[in-house]
């Protein structure tokens, strides 16, 4: 399978509801992550790193910040004359009569885009999965197994999202049974919602599902067809994490303070591309003290920073203390202020001498542009 024969589709908004704080003003795809990224960067980079050159981005609402981030697609080299990046908002064609609630509806509303694309295969995924996966291998596994559909999965504790599928597989990785996750403390094979199939099969499944008034992709298409179709699993062993809550968002960010996780997610062979902001390199001032932290360009640090992630352009004043926190772009912690276990959205200001403190298992969230 030549990867320029594969169409990539990313749902920019699926599971917005698991992060209500961060998706109040934006969509999942544009949620900041890891000091300089937005979540959609991982999906887009996975696509382009395997040579996929045509990508559709399905949006629903609240996508202005996503559009600002992806722009014309240049950072991913998807600003093309042929192929490239296609934003697929609702209401953009005459037949899309309403807002889609479900994956089936959303994809069905893009049938025109699918039809017009020349690619033979399609890969689609969500934005709440942070991963760096070699899609070349995924595609070649799909090819070799002769599967109709291949779904990437991971073995471990399933995310706390209701419609997560968990799989029983045989030795050849064929999915024998797909069940909706039940709460359990056992390691299971749970879906990463990354699907590969022929475009023609997807078109047929969507048309049938809509004809039957089916709405749920996981239940009505995957679960029902495990015996009729050859559905295979592709096990992912590298870094792949599903964001299912603000707590997991916090923890997955913090995992990047471990070298091995950085090495896995930021593999130089498969770089993660993002929008360029042209900040200057960070400055550590005289008397600053930084320990076990990730610091993006544009930061100016004169205080103390520990076990934290600082996004671009964050400023930490003299005697300020930042501990176990995520501080997003352009935020400012003033002199002698102190924060611990806090998630600060963009452009927050903590005024001098203020103290804000969450706990390890309950980080405090501060909304965009708030002054405390």
């Amino acid at each position: 399978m030549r990867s320029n024969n594969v169409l990539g589709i990313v749902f920019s908004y699926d599971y917005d509801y698991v992060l209500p704080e961060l998706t109040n003003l934006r969509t999942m795809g544009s949620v900041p992550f890891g000091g300089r990224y937005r979540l959609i960067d991982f999906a887009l980079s996975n696509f382009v790193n395997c040579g996929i050159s045509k990508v559709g981005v399905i949006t629903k609402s609240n996508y202005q910040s996503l559009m600002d981030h992806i722009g014309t697609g240049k950072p991913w080299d998807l600003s093309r004359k042929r192929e490239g990046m296609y934003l697929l908002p609702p209401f953009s064609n005459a037949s899309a009569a309403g807002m889609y609630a479900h994956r089936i509806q959303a994809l069905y509303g893009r049938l025109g885009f699918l039809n017009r694309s020349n690619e033979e295969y399609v890969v689609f995924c969500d934005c709440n999965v942070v991963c760096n996966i070699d899609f070349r291998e995924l595609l070649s596994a799909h090819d070799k197994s002769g599967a109709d559909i291949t779904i990437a999965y991971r073995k471990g504790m399933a995310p706390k999202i209701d419609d997560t599928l968990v799989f029983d597989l045989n030795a050849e990785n064929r999915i024998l049974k797909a069940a909706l996750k039940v709460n359990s403390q056992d390691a299971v094979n749970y879906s990463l919602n990354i699907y590969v199939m022929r475009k023609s099969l997807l078109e047929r499944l969507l048309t049938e599902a809509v004809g039957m008034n089916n709405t749920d992709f996981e239940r009505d298409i995957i679960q029902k067809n495990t015996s009729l179709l050859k559905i295979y699993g592709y096990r992912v062993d590298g870094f792949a994490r599903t964001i299912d809550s603000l707590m997991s968002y916090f923890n997955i960010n913090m995992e990047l303070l471990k070298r091995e996780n950085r090495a896995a997610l930021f593999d130089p062979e498969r770089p993660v591309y993002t929008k360029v902001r042209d900040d200057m390199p960070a400055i550590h001032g005289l008397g600053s003290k930084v320990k076990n932290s990730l610091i993006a360009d544009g930061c100016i640090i004169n205080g103390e920073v520990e076990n934290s992630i600082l996004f671009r352009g964050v400023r930490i004043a003299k005697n300020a203390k930042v501990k176990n926190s995520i501080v997003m772009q352009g935020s400012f912690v003033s002199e002698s202020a102190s924060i611990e276990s806090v998630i600060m959205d963009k452009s927050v200001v903590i005024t001098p001498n203020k103290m804000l403190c969450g706990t390890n298992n309950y980080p405090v969230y501060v909304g965009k542009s708030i002054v405390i």
Partner: protein
Amino acid sequence: MSKKHECIAMLLAGGQGSRLGILTKNIAKPAVPYGGKYRIIDFPLSNCVNSGIYTVGVLTQYQPLELNDYIGNGQPWDLDRMNGGVHILSPYQQIKGTEWYKGTANAIYQNINFIDRYNPEYVLILSGDHIYKMDYSKMIAFHKEKNADCTIAMLEVPWEEAPRFGLMLLNDDNSISEFEEKPKNPRSNYASMGVYTFTWKKLREYLIDDEANTHSSNDFGNDVIPAMHSAGEKMFAYPFDGYWKDVGTIDSLWEANLDLLNPKVDLDLSDESWKIYSRNPVTSPHYISDTADVQNSMIAEGTEISGCVDFSVLFSNVTVEEGAVVRDSIVMPGTVIKSGAVVQYAIVAENAVIEENAVVGQRPEDMINLDEWGVAVVGASVTIGKGANIAPKAMIDVDVKGVE
């Protein structure tokens, strides 16, 4: 997109920059890294786009491969245009034979066709080895207002440094009455910054005359400017008072980097209204470990620090291992400084490896004879072996064996 271009810029990036020694062995001077993530040429290019000049010719004949590669399609500077944009102009073979660029004026002369294509009113001549932020549009407005034929950007320098510069004597209206080239006893401290605005029609004539003159060295400073002056053309000096530094020597390059850490120096790279654009490395944020101690330093993305870093500029993807020390130094992308190594008063170029316990450079206070002191330089991809000692002022461009 508008077809007429009021002003286009020609950037003289040709010099071999031999005073930068091994740093320019494989790259042209404008491509030398500076300031943690930039290259020298980012400054004139960013000044151009920030001043609304979207057509730039970069004249180069020496080692253009990396420069070419760095500039690419110009996208990082928003210079990937359908009409205009950035163009690398190397000499080429003409039907009557070939010529390398003989001098700065000849380089422009050989590209008259290129300039004519845009039919500009004004041409801005820049050089590729200065660090400064300047709004050229103000200089062009000054040039227009004075109805000048040539305007030269000018900087007031300390009198004691004046003898190193080309100087100008001015009338009250800022018109130039006299030039002095590096005089022993300067009568002025108004130095030329090597930034010229010319009315293209005028310059075009003088370039053709200059080319016809077999005695000419085909240089702006030596030939074209004096010729215009003696012919009585209207020449003005445009005063500039920001930070400006020629980074043509190892010492000045080292200083200009460390100037970024001096709050008293007027060169703010975080100014949102005058961004310096560059081709950004694709890496994650930089990481400071529990064992690190970083003070008064500039650190670029992708770098991992577990050792001690003081008063230094570290580029992207540098590794400073636990127990290593970097102070008063510039470390370029991809270099690894291993445990126990000490790098001080040094410039270490890209992808070098400083092995365990090696020492590069010396603090001036530890020198017996201060005349022997100077910045040590380690070239690109050079390995300094375990425990080896690199003297101050040294320039190392081959691997140095370890000491058992």
